[in-house]
């Protein structure tokens, strides 16, 4: 699955968890904290993203992620 396609799913997850955001504000270079997400929002984005891709990834795999690009990379790596 290409990066753009995975990011589109992640973006959907972000907008679902944080419905007050404008879609154009959700860009791949931003972190969830940049977008005003708290710790629960961040967990929700991760879980919604996994669900949209039908993946089940151990939470510790996301430990080093610090922006949406990093999240996309982890999802991509587990999408064999």
């Amino acid at each position, binding site marked *: 699955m290409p990066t753009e396609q995975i990011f589109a799913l992640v973006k959907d997850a972000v907008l679902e968890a944080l419905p*007050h955001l404008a879609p154009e504000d959700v860009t791949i270079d931003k972190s969830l904290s940049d977008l005003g997400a708290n710790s*629960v929002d961040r967990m929700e984005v991760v*879980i919604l993203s*996994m*669900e949209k891709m039908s993946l089940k990834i151990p939470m510790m795999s996301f430990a080093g992620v610090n922006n949406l690009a990093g999240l996309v990379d982890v999802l991509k790596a587990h999408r064999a």
Partner: protein
Amino acid sequence: MSRPRVIVSGMGVVSSIGGDVASFAEALRSGRSGVTRIAQPPVDIGALIENVDFAARLTPYPAHAAAARRLAGRAPFGAQAAIVAALEAWTQSGLQAGALAPEQIGLVVAGHNLTRAYQHAAHEVFARDPEYLSPRYALHYQDSDHLGLLSALIGVKGEGFICGAASASGAVGIIQASRLIRAGVVDACLAVGALVDLSPMEWQGFHNIGAMGGKRFRDAPQQACRPFDAAHEGFIYGQAAACLVLESQATAARRGAHALCEIAGGSIALHATASADPDADGAARAMTGALRDAGVAAHEIQYVNTHGTSSPLGDRTEIDALERVFGEAFPRVWLNSTKSLTGHTLTAAGALEAVATIVQMQGDFLHPNLNLVTPISARARFCGGEAIAAETRLAMSNSFGFGGINASVILRRGDHDV
């Protein structure tokens, strides 16, 4: 020195018969029932809140709307209803202008097991893929989530807790909030009667224990809830959230706030049972305790907003208790049951019915007691099928719950600025 008096400076309601206090009051006056046919086995009759559009319901509160959507846009429906009711009460109180420090304001959320429908829906995801359970579940399944949402939105930093007493919760919450103010712990306190959102399992449970009505009147839903009528056969579920802003009279007077009513007293009494059964002695002790607390004699009470759930044993037991408490004055006291219009709103009922009592005092009327064809007591002075004009100075509101919990609140008319 006399103890501090507690007044009501704001009220809010979301119910099946009105989405705010004004429309709720109008529905009470016109006798409009919220009970309808619904798609919820095994009873298929209830009084549900319609048009549950959270964003639309926030439009009267522009200062809080965006924050409320951000905080609770995805919270369970019952928590959203509590927020809308609390914003109405808070706005009416005038306290949002900052007259009191946040640390001087308390929050009592009355009710428990509030989000069962939400939990039931989450369980479908969990049973299939536990990994995909929303992390918000850990927050929202807890009733204390209401405290977090409401305090964050309104900016309350004083004492706060969940107050649980089954169907007496709303009344117990008002009593505890009053005590916080009387004790000087806070100067004002929101008392929220929270909506209980039943899952299909609770519907079945209440049906199986024999508490729910709607059997004989299955084809006539609007007649199914008939408190104190000989054909009553159990409660009809209703949805509501209600909020009262209570405040010390001294604080309210200092800022020139209007007293909608005074919470003159209240009392809670158990009757030592683990069953669902009511008890006339327990109910009477709550009522006499409330009268004593208010310094009021029974014959001074002009109107009782009864618990009146339409349960045969419950209705009869409450009448027995009222006869004991009021004695010779019993035939002169007006009685009605708000549940005949709203259904039984469970933990919200005590707060919703306090608001109903206050708006009847303000509007100089008593609302109908619907579906009362053959009263179970010939001595009782029940309201009939139409609202009547009545000027009430002192009223009592009763609430009883499973587990032998009896609560009674005394309300004194508050027409004048404090």
